[in-house]
């Protein structure tokens, strides 16, 4: 740290210790004099005034060049043996929509499997918190139904794929990409340092996306004339809608209801 800023940082450190928190060193306010010096020096060293979007043009050009040659993540594994259900779907859905249905079901299946593991990780964290901070607004047992319903959604998606003659063990392109999204949430939930509030925010993003995707699948099923699939997808949607409400409620209790968490 810049010696000229030591007085400021000592003050901030005393305040931080009083509140029981650590000393976050990342912001400019921890070293205002050093930052002023850095900024003015950087401004002096810039040879030419930068165009407002100069950096963006360079990056965009590289991305454009790669996008032209990139191709796709992979192909959708379409049914090896065409079932009666798939025949009906193909008759009702235009263009690429039958393929999209298989792709999106594969995505829900992968998402649901991840969700089960995410809820398990959250339950493990709740068990650890119960030992050190017993007064939490929810208990691990309250998460069990959400985990179990995620497992049920996995089976709904797998059964739907099987009914269409598709391979439910295959990884569809959207399933592969969705795993990149949930990977970040997995990191949050399994980090022993994260708080319950942080974890609830993270898993809320999973449930919001899940709710929206089942809603889309309901519309596809309805268009495809698949009443039984629609009924199962609607059940999953209702579950996720309830999950979103519960997670928001617990999150709000943590943020608005009690200090010091």
């Amino acid at each position, binding site marked *: 740290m810049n010696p000229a800023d030591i007085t400021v940082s000592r003050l901030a450190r005393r305040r931080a210790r009083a509140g029981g928190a650590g000393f976050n060193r990342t912001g400019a306010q921890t070293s205002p004099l050093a930052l002023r010096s850095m900024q003015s020096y950087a401004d002096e060293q810039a040879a030419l005034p930068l165009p407002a979007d100069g950096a963006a043009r360079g990056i965009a050009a590289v991305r454009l060049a790669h996008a032209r040659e990139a191709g796709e993540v*992979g192909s959708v594994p379409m049914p090896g043996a065409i079932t009666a259900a798939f025949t009906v779907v193909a008759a009702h859905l235009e263009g690429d929509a039958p393929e999209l249905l298989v792709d999106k079901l594969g995505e829900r299946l992968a998402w649901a499997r991840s969700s089960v593991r995410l809820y398990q990780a959250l339950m493990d964290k709740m068990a650890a918190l119960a030992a050190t901070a017993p007064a939490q607004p929810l208990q691990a047992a309250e998460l069990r139904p959400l985990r179990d319903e995620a497992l049920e959604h996995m089976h709904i998606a797998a059964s739907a794929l099987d009914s269409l003659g598709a391979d439910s063990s295959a990884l569809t392109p959207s399933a592969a990409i969705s795993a990149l999204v949930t990977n970040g949430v997995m990191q949050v939930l399994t980090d022993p340092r994260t708080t319950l509030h942080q974890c609830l925010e993270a898993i809320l993003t999973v449930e919001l996306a899940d709710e929206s995707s089942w809603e889309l699948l309901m519309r596809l099923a309805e268009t495809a004339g698949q009443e039984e699939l629609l009924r199962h997808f609607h059940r999953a949607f209702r579950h996720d809608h309830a999950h979103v409400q519960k997670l928001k409620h617990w999150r709000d209790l943590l943020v608005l209801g009690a200090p010091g968490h």
Partner: protein
Amino acid sequence: MVGEAMDLLAHAGVPLEDQMLTWREMAGKPISKLDDDAFTRVRVILMNALELDAMRLQDFGARSEAELRLSLACVRRIEQHQATAVSWMLSADHSALEATVACEQVAVELTAAIAQHEPDPYLAQVYRFGLLENLDRLYRYAALLDRLEGKDANNILQGYTDIVPGRPTAETHRAPRDDLRRASAPGARLVSRLHMILVAAAAHRARDYYMTVGPAFADPVARELYAEIASCGEQHATQYGALLAPGQSFLESWLLHEAAEVYAYLSCARSESNPRIRAIWERFCDYELGQLQHVGGLMRRHEHRDPAEVLAHGLPAPLEFRSQRDFVREVLGEEVHLRARECGFIDHGAESAESLDYRRRVNAHGSPSTQVALSYHWTAGTELNRPRPPS
């Protein structure tokens, strides 16, 4: 490109001064995790391992071979660019854990293929011993992939490699003395020397990869497992590295390594199903031939030796890139009970006190490889797909 039973020194390849890659070529279009054959990924990981090994060898050579430093810097530059181009073939939708499962598939399939074609019985035994430990690590990582990420390892393995326990990882932690295998003789056959280089390179890469990605996991179970298996990787690096005959000149080591790279690229090109990737294997094979010619010239000038002394008999038959499932199951059934003591192999129960003490101490806070896979039984579509017991 070259034909069967090739005389390495008869092919000029691409001259060193003409070997060049642009940044766009180094960061080219990756393979597809979904549509490319798993053995394409196996080849990518193997060739990345071999290029990294080449760089490591050339780094060490530069420390002691002052007269060769310029040649080493020039060759190492293109080797590093090739290493980048190959490594970047892995698409970004591979999670670190999926890439890890793929890494162990390389170890199991490559070591099994080599064990069956290795003419020296002792070396073949070393490879059979090692592959059962890689098989177990694959099983442990598959358990973590299922229980942490909710994914099926078979999406990576594509039905080529079994997911079952091998020699239990918790029981493979040995004192360094018991990882030192007997060095091969200076006059070992070329095929044996090439095998050693390939297997050692793969082991080094696995160790270094696990040490790089391990800390990026937030989950303490994953962090502990990677710490444990990275150490196992170090054991394998020691084991396979010990096979290489000491005392050969640096230039001979370098020449052999370039020959191993030609052999591996040639083998990759012969079996590659993706035409775009095959073209890269062929191009890099020609680069390695050019590097081989360069090193051969150095050997003539500095050691007054004909590289044909080392490479007289030409390359062996190309490496096999196909499932070795039957062989692996046979070895598992017959040799999972084996343990190691100094350079030999003994029955479970006859290990050294030194290794037993080391194992007790390093496992003192628990065994992550045991904990992560408690009751793990691979099931297609993950454990969650197993029929639920009636309530």
